[in-house]
């Protein structure tokens, strides 16, 4: 039994899924880090 050769399209599709999901997670992580940094700085300024 032979199957049509469509593996390269599956690889491309999985790459897109990975890029979107991991990319979104990374964006969230960067925004978390920035928010924590901002809070730390602002709380320090508020105390001074």
């Amino acid at each position, binding site marked *: 039994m032979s199957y049509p050769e*469509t593996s390269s399209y599956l690889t491309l*599709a999985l790459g*897109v899924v990975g890029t*979107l*999901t991991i990319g979104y997670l990374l964006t969230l992580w960067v*925004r978390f880090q920035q*928010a924590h940094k901002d*809070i730390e700085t602002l709380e320090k300024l508020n105390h001074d």
Partner: protein
Amino acid sequence: MTTISPVSPAPRAGLQVMSATTLIAVAVGLYLALIFAGTDIDQGNIQRIFYIHMPAFFGAFTAFSATVLGGILYLITRNPRWDRMAVAGVEVGLMLSLVNLLTGSIWARPIWNTWWTWDPRLTSTAVMVLTYAAYLMLRAGIEQPEQRRRFAAVYGILAIVTVVITLVIIRVRDDTIHPVVVGTGSTAAEGTFDVQATRGVTTALLFNLPVWGLLIPITLMMFRMRLEQLTEHVDRLKAELMER
């Protein structure tokens, strides 16, 4: 000086449990989709993307439904926590819609011999994606928090119309070539979905549906809601500093 409730930097235990569960479930789901399920006789390996493509749409539906719920509850209670849920739903739903749209396009290239066609389902999905992208852009353009939340709540409730149209369009339009997988479409429709895999199709699909349809959107929304809470905290600290 006004006392501001501290926001703990560490993720809550519930979020940690959800994250671990989701990661394990995604790994098992990928195993079932890429290794366990048999290869489709007609489509070859590209058919396996169907185990992510369709569940991702249901994930987007879950997230956009949360936006509607959040919008309604915000308009009733004016509690910002519901606005956080609404914006989290849009962001996560948009990401999952893009997963759905792009994987569909890649699948279409070898199967339909084109990356894109103005089929009713594809067009309605594109309109849905653009509608929610516009939500984020318009929301970011409103400075006053109360006005922003009220606008976003109404927009988020109305935007669900594009999701409902996308869901039902393949069942009412005869000129679609998009397959109807769940239920039956129009008898005159051109698209079919006759998966001829040797084994594991149902198992892989039934496992991945709740993973991409519930676990992933809910976990990501929990993270996004927490981020929104931190952002609000930053805004409060800034306002306090300006008052001094």
